């Protein structure tokens, strides 16, 4: 069904090869320049990074136009040769990667422009832009990769730079902890990914996607490998049960959060599943797993977002929830819909995060109860934020509506009824928590002491908001029935698209409106008493504590690990250290003994020489056999 992933055309016309390479190499070059000169350049580092990523973006447009014209291209060379193992390294340009190139470079460019304002005055700004550049480049390589070995390398690159960026303010203990958590939790998923790749190599004898997708693997085996690869996606895309790192990753600078959530990091997992889709199709059970995990994630995250009070955390849980939607879409067979949602989500989520960044920049707090009444004071920010919120809530004609509706439609038509209804319920929750946030932050009376001198952010921050706001408004159109499902046709290279179902569409509009209305009742007006939801309610407690996932992991994983580590530590301290210290003690004692012969008297030394001479003479007697 997905013709786009049919064996690639590998004829490369030279100019498109150069374009493809440059898109990747420009951010890498920016990284190298900034690593060396970043300290000296200071604030001017941003010029290098932004011009590099802007050039990449323009070249990506050329690449997309090339692909729209029916072109496909693959560059590859043998990376190393070890015995029978000849992994290649390459760049692949097809509709899927072309779409992602646009998303990654565009969002990265806007985020970097926004960062100029947000990070103004930070003393390690050069390093910040260097990391952003390489983060983008790593993600571009994930997108480009035509074989799993290369994907894995780029995947780890994304992990490393996300670690560096989340922990960018490592002076703050919570930031370094969050970076560590992000790195280690995703590592759990990567372990599954690695095992899957090893298994795949054993079974297929290659990691080249093109060859693997042309094979006919047995269904159970393919399903096992696909699920293992999906483990990697679960880690990176923060799916249940490895979603715990993403909300903590809010400790990073807000532009980094925007980048992670919109384009570079979490999208990698969804993209990986999409890229490996033929493999999942060989073992259909794996798609069911993807759909179920996605659905659980979507619901859990949306429900947690209901009670979060940190503006970035609300958005973080909404990301987890939307990623669940994407996985759900992929899992129920709505491949194009899943990718479409990734596409639209990238824009409106980047918008929401940058908007949140703008708000935080203004009020110096992340707690939503310190905000309120910001609407009149920050017109651009609040207007664009509301556009993003409407897109997230799935209100037509905003972009999120079209893509989310497609996913629900896919679930409905493929007969996954339970998943469909959970999806609808989650849509209701989504609309509710989004507008809870908007009503609390931008409407009502000002709270908190900073509010009086709140002002709109500088143009360097507001212009990206306007651009993203426009995109959030219109990006959905490319996949809407009005444009003949252009996006889906482009991605799948097939004209068999799902036709709009009025029941599904009507239902999703209804729940979105209901959710917003409920939020307005609760937070926009004083019609409902504030005590309508008791703080002692067990469900409320469960949500506030995020289903106790962190606590569960603490008691199931961390505590036993600590206990084991303690025993190992005592072994290390007593036996290993003892041995080492013993050697040192013996050396010290021997040394202080030998020191006694260093009297400083020349005559002593002369006598030692004489003794040495005698020994030598006797020894030479022995050698010569005199005696």
């Amino acid at each position, binding site marked *: 069904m997905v013709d786009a992933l049919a064996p690639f055309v590998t004829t490369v016309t030279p100019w498109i090869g150069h374009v493809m390479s440059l898109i990747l190499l420009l951010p890498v070059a920016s990284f190298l320049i900034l690593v060396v000169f970043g300290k000296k350049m200071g604030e001017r580092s941003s010029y290098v990074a932004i011009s590099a990523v802007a050039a990449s973006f323009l070249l990506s447009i050329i690449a997309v136009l090339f692909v729209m014209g029916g072109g496909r291209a693959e560059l590859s060379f043998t990376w190393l040769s070890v015995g029978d193992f000849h992994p290649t390294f390459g760049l692949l340009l097809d509709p899927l990667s072309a779409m992602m190139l646009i998303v990654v470079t565009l969002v990265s460019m806007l985020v970097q422009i926004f960062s100029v304002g947000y990070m103004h005055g930070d003393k390690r700004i050069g390093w910040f832009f260097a990391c952003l550049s390489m983060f983008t480049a790593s993600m571009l390589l994930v997108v480009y990769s035509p074989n799993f070995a290369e994907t894995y390398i780029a995947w780890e690159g994304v992990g490393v730079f996300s670690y560096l960026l989340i922990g960018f303010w490592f002076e703050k203990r919570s930031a370094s902890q969050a970076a560590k958590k992000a790195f280690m939790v995703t590592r759990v998923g990567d372990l599954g990914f690695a095992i899957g790749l090893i298994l795949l190599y054993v079974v297929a004898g290659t990691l080249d996607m093109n060859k693997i997708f042309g094979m006919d693997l047995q269904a159970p085996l393919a399903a096992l490998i696909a699920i293992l690869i999906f483990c990697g996606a679960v880690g990176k895309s923060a799916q249940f049960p490895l979603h715990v790192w993403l909300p903590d990753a809010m400790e990073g600078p807000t532009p980094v959060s925007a980048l992670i959530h919109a384009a570079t990091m979490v999208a990698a997992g969804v993209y990986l599943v999409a890229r490996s889709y033929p493999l999942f199709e060989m073992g259909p059970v794996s798609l069911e797993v993807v759909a179920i995990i996605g659905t659980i994630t979507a619901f859990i995250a949306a429900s947690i977002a209901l009670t979060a009070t940190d503006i970035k955390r609300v958005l973080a849980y909404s990301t987890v929830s939307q990623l669940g939607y994407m996985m759900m879409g992929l899992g129920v067979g709505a491949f194009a819909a899943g990718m479409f949602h990734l596409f639209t989500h990238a824009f409106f989520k980047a918008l929401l995060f940058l908007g949140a960044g703008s708000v935080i920049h203004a009020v110096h707090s992340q707690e939503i109860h310190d905000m309120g009444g910001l609407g009149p004071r920050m017109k651009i920010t609040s207007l664009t934020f509301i556009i993003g919120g409407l897109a997230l809530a799935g209100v037509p004609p905003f972009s999120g509506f079209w893509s989310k509706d497609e996913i629900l439609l896919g679930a409905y038509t493929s007969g996954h009824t339970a998943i469909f209804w959970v999806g609808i319920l989650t849509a209701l929750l989504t609309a509710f928590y989004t507008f809870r946030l908007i009503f609390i932050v931008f409407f009502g009376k000002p709270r908190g002491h900073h509010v009086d001198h709140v002002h709109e952010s500088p143009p360097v921050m507001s212009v990206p908001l306007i651009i993203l706001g426009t995109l959030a408004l219109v990006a959905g159109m490319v996949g809407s029935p009005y444009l003949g499902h252009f996006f889906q046709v482009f991605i799948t290279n097939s004209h068999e698209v799902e036709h709009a179902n009025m029941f599904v569409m009507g239902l999703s509009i209804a729940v979105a409106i209901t959710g917003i209305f409920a939020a307005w009742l609760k937070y926009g007006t004083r019609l409902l008493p504030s005590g309508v939801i008791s703080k002692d309610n067990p469900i409320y407690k469960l949500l506030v504590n995020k289903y106790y996932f962190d606590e569960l992991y603490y008691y199931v994983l961390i505590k036993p690990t600590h206990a084991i580590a303690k025993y190992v530590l005592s072994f290390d301290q007593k036996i290993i250290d003892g041995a080492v210290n013993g050697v040192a003690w013996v050396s010290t004692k021997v040394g202080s003994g030998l020191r006694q012969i*260093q009297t*400083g*008297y*020349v*005559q002593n030394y002369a006598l030692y020489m004489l003794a040495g001479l005698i020994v030598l003479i006797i020894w030479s007697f022995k050698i010569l056999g005199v005696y």
Partner: protein
Amino acid sequence: MSLESIPLSYYLILSAILFGIGLAGVLLRKNAVTILLSVEIMLNAANLNLVAFSRYITPAAASGQIFALFVMAIAAAEVAVGLALVLTIYRNVKSVNLDEFNLFKW
């Protein structure tokens, strides 16, 4: 003339004894000048050795004598420099007793 009556080994053993005496002096005396005297004893003992070899093994070539003369020249130089050093030390610390110098001590 004396080849039959006095074997070479007599000379060699005598020079070894003299060398030993000089060596003991170097190792046991405290006065730097005495130590220089003892070094001269050792040098002369070695010279005796060289000349004896020259006489008994290569009587026609005289190369051992040349060696002995070289040793004398170097001994003269050594005494000159050695005494200069002793004088300088004496001027600085008013002593030439080597057992008072242990600056190299740990």
